[in-house]
C-alpha cells in the first residue's frame, strides 16, 4: 500500500518568507508526528496529532511554527518569517493509535528539505 508522502521534496525560500510543508499519512493512521532533522540538533520531535487535535506541541521551537491536521488525514506544517536556522529536513511519520499499553511503530515519509537563504 501507499506509504507516507510529503511535499514538496525540496523547498528553497528567502529569509522572512512563510512556507507550508505537507504530509499525507498512511490511510487509517490516526497518529501523526512531525520531526526535524538538522546538522546541529539531530532528529528532534516537533508535534504530535491524535486525529485532528494536537495534544503535544512541546517540540515546536518558536511561535513561528504551527501545524494543523484536517479530516484526520493530511497535515500541514507552517513556518512563518523563516530564519536561516530553520533550514533542515522536516520528516512526517504516522502510526496506528496506541491501544492500551501496546504501541505501534511509526512509518516515516521521505522528508522535505528546507533551505532558507
Amino acid at each position, binding site marked *: 500500500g501507499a506509504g*507516507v508522502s510529503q511535499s514538496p521534496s525540496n523547498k528553497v525560500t528567502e529569509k522572512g518568507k512563510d512556507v507550508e510543508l505537507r504530509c499525507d499519512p498512511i490511510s487509517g493512521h490516526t*497518529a501523526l*508526528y512531525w*520531526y526535524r532533522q538538522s546538522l546541529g540538533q*539531530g*532528529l*528532534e*520531535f516537533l508535534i*504530535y496529532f*491524535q486525529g485532528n487535535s494536537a*495534544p*503535544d506541541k512541546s*517540540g515546536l521551537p518558536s511561535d513561528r511554527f504551527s501545524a494543523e491536521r484536517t479530516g484526520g488525514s493530511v497535515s500541514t506544517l507552517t513556518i512563518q518569517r523563516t530564519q536561516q536556522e530553520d533550514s533542515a529536513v522536516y*520528516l512526517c*511519520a504516522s*502510526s496506528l493509535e*496506541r491501544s492500551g499499553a*501496546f*504501541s*505501534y*511503530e*511509526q*512509518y*516515516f*515519509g*521521505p*522528508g522535505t528539505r528546507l533551505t532558507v537563504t
Partner: protein
Amino acid sequence: AQSVTQPDIHITVSEGASLELRCNYSYGATPYLFWYVQSPGQGLQLLLKYFSGDTLVQGIKGFEAEFKRSQSSFNLRKPSVHWSDAAEYFCAVAAGNTDKLIFGTGTRLQVFP
C-alpha cells in the same frame, strides 16, 4: 528526562565482518525501543523494535538487537555486513503517552570492500 545515547559517531568495517552498534537509553518505565536506518537522501526505515517479551529481537536485513535492562542498552548486531548496509543508524525510545520518538545522534556506518 528520557534520552538515548549512541556513543559511536562513525564506524568503519570490512564487508563480511560482524557489526555491533551501541545504544544506551535513559527512561523511567519499560521502554519501547527502535532501530531505524537512513540511507543517503532517504527517509527512515524501521529495522526492528522491542516492546516486551523476548529480549533478543530479529529485524529485517539480517539485523538483530538485544535488550539488556541491567545495562540500559539495546545494541544492534549483524553477523556479516554487506556493502549495501552503509548508512546512518538511529536508535530511539518512544516516550510518554504520545509515543513520540527520542532519537540518539546516530552512527554512520561505512563498509569497505
